[in-house]
């Protein structure tokens, strides 16, 4: 059987989650490997959530937020950008494949982009194979 990755998505309520809804409303098709947790703002994302997700066996983690400048809470995603960039560097230096963690800015109107990102990311994770480094067995 081919490898079906498990991907955890964490999406902000105002942009990316709504964008994901729009992808559905417009019936765009994308792989079903992504499971989304809704938070109010990408800045809510604690870096430990990301580490934890990998420990729980996520093969990839996708974070979605509003475009910088469009944050519902003005500046949340600007903090998130820095914090998640550091998260990414830490993952990389710990030996995790850099491709497994991605941050995308997807607005409420970008249903297309949401679907496209999910397709692309799922494919990338599929190519990377199962994530075993952090996974607690």
């Amino acid at each position, binding site marked *: 059987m081919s490898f079906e990755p498990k991907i955890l998505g964490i999406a902000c309520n105002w942009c990316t989650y709504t964008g994901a809804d729009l992808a559905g409303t417009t019936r765009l098709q994308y792989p079903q490997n992504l499971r989304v947790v809704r938070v109010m703002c990408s800045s809510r994302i604690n870096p430990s959530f990301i580490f934890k997700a990998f*420990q729980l066996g996520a093969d990839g983690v996708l974070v979605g937020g509003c475009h910088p400048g469009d944050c519902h809470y003005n500046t949340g995603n600007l903090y998130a950008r*820095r914090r998640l960039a550091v998260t990414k560097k830490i993952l990389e230096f710990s*030996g995790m494949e850099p491709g497994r963690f991605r941050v995308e800015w997807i607005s409420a109107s970008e249903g297309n982009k949401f679907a496209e990102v999910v397709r692309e990311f799922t494919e990338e994770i599929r190519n990377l194979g199962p994530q075993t480094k952090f996974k607690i067995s």
Partner: protein
Amino acid sequence: MATSFKQIEENLKTEAGKLLDAGKVSMVLAYGRGYDEKHPLPYVARSLADVDGMVFNEYCTANLARYLVRYPRGTKIGIAAKAADSRAVIQLIQEDKVKRDDLVILGIPVYGMKNAKTDEAIDAKTTCGLYNPVIYDVLLGEEVHGQPVLSPYEVLEKVEAMGQDERFAFWKKELDRCIRCYACRKACPMCYCDPCFIDQNKPKWGEKSPETGGNLMYHLTRFHHLAGRCIDCGECSRACPVDIPLYLFHKKVAKECEEMFGQAAGMSIDEKPALINFRVEDSDKILE
């Protein structure tokens, strides 16, 4: 020419004595005699009589800034601070854990401090490579000049050159050794949370047992919490009974932060810690 350790010790005693005598501070954080020469002890002098117990030698590596948060806000404290220690003081001032006005910083310009276990010089290996304190009120010796300018990040080369799998194996081997005694966070001047996230049950961020999962969670999250705040004193690694080279990871994160955000921790009291700050112009490239 740098001032000798003996001379620094003398100056330390003189200056500490003056401060205590004049009542400018209620205590001076310095170093005192341990069970032998190689093992000096962090030491608090509260009166002129205590000053005699002070020592300073190449093994006085402990970062005394770690003790600042232990005393009530507003306590007037004198503190002996080497280069990295002074950065810790600055960082604590940035974070409003201590007030600049409450401190008298006795700066120690020095090189050739040694790790007592290995007898190796630690200058740029496990610490930040600076010789002179960044901030001080009194300097306990001449500024060090003419020593080689060392990049604190050169030691990273080997680990940076590794492939992802090799690097993971490296860190797994190192971190699996962890016995969760938490000496690293307790020795760290910037780790002042009580309780630490890892001690909590709600939420339970990581297991308390010293196994791969909990160890990884504890250390990675701690690296993140110290991102943009770690001042590269190397105390975490020196404190570690099982010699995990935590300093390598901290240095890497500090290096990345400097590159991405253009500021190093503990260099100026007017800055904000990089991760509780942002610039609108920050590039999305940092996420790539």
